[in-house]
């Protein structure tokens, strides 16, 4: 049970990292990114492939974030000026392209079979529970750094400008400032966090395949920030927690509903998350922590 809880905590922390990135993009800047999982996927595959070729983790880890940024930058350059709903579609398409490339380019990614035997973090130094604790510690450190950086950004003139862009892009242009430049930077920063999350994920699970990077992941992160409170850093934290509570908690639904078969249970769990989202939008649209309406 202890090991189970640590595992849950690790996955939650990975979701927090993803949610922090999306919150920066959508909550603070208003970028509707429906392709967050694409950057997560790039990060995971980058470090997995590099590790296969004997590149040490201290190198492959930062490269995972850098490569995710390197994907985000041209994507932003060509599409960030689109109206937000069109950008949403483009970003969703981007993440699907990433997944399909991971599926088809077998020489690089081993296709649908995926990459197995990705070295565990801290392997050789630590084993068993100590290793898990160390991974969790690393994630907490990454999250803490990300939150500190985010706070710095929110309180800076840059942060003020991205919130102004979220509130009214045309007015920003009328003041002589180009929203696109700010939005591209935010897209790239959020992608870096997703790439980093992907790297931790790959080394923690030890096996990655394209089907782990479905758009569903993106929408789960969206649910997390909506339930937690859009535009709030605490919202990303709390939201990822609630999401995990629903995803994992519904695992135990079977104890109270033994008449549901193992197979239908997966759908029931998704249904529970969906129901939670509906209830949230009906009764607490601002999310648990309140939305960006006031800092």
């Amino acid at each position: 049970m202890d090991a189970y809880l640590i595992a849950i905590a690790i996955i939650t922390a990975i979701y927090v990292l993803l949610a922090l990135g999306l919150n920066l993009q959508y909550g603070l800047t208003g970028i509707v990114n429906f392709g967050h999982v694409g950057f997560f996927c790039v990060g995971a595959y980058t470090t997995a492939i590099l590790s296969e070729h004997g590149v040490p983790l201290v190198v492959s880890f930062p490269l995972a974030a850098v490569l995710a940024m390197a994907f985000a930058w041209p994507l932003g350059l060509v599409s960030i000026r689109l109206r937000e709903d069109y950008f949403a579609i483009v970003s969703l398409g981007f993440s699907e392209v990433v997944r399909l490339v991971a599926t088809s380019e077998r020489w690089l990614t081993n296709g649908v079979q995926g990459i197995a035997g990705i070295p565990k973090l801290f392997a050789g130094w630590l084993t068993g529970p100590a290793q898990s604790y160390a991974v969790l510690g690393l994630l907490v450190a990454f999250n803490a750094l990300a939150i500190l950086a985010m706070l710095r950004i929110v309180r800076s003139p840059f942060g003020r400008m991205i919130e102004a862009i979220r509130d009214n892009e045309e007015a920003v242009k009328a003041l002589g400032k180009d929203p696109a430049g700010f939005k591209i930077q935010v897209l790239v920063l959020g992608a870096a966090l997703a790439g980093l999350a992907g790297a931790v994920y790959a080394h923690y699970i030890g096996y990655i395949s394209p089907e782990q990077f479905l758009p569903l992941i993106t929408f789960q992160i969206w649910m997390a920030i909506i339930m937690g409170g859009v535009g709030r850093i605490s919202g990303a934290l709390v939201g990822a927690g609630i999401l995990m509570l629903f995803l994992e908690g519904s695992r135990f639904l079977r104890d109270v509903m033994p008449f549901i078969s193992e197979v239908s249970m997966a759908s029931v769990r998704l249904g529970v998350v969906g129901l939670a989202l509906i209830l949230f939008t009906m009764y607490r649209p601002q999310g648990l922590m309140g939305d960006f309406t006031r800092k």
Partner: protein
Amino acid sequence: MTLAIQGLTKAYGGLHVVNDVRFEVPSGALVGVIGPNGAGKSTLFSLITGFLAADAGDVSFEGRSLGRASPMERARAGMVRTFQVPREFSHLTVRENLLAAAPGQSGERLIDTFFRPGRVKAEEAAIAREAAETIDFLRLAKVADVPAGRLSGGQKKLVELGRALMTGARMILLDEPFAGVNPVLIEELSVRIRELNGRGIGFLIIEHDLAALNKLVSTLHVMDRGVLIASGAPAEVLGNPRVRDAYLGGAAA
């Protein structure tokens, strides 16, 4: 002369919304554009400020041709607009709205935010003083730290004016500043505009409400169905039968 509008034209399908409009706004002048609904005033404004691309014609400001420049470039050149329906940054406070408008902030670069916090802080202090003065000048002190989205329509127009001032604009283009504003605030706004004009800032004002505008401006241009039908001093222009016809005819229809 500062702002020259040189034959701006915009058509949708066969309909000329703005047709070969040309006039000049001398530096530091207070000029109004009036016309009935659908005369093409707001479209003209968007053509001048680059929010719409003109089919023909050019705009030059302080001798520089801006006809192909982006809205951002035109604003940076010193010509800043407001909007008919206020576009405040609703979740930012009035003060933050003004701060956001200040040009050339190094704190808007991430690298400086993280690695040159001292410089960012010093700059921020300077623009904060400027914003505080502007807030006092516009009599917005009471709501300075209230999110701009909660203000009344008239107050939001003051915020937009404040933002335009913070950019250091030499020419401010106001799009129906008096629409939906209560009479007391209209008077207040007029006083501020006159005072700013006294400091050398030029204004081009589009307005539907004649009474408020003709007391304020020195020159009036009248538009009807996309063309300029009269120009001159307010009293003279309003006495022009063509103008009366356009206005009364428009109102009666």
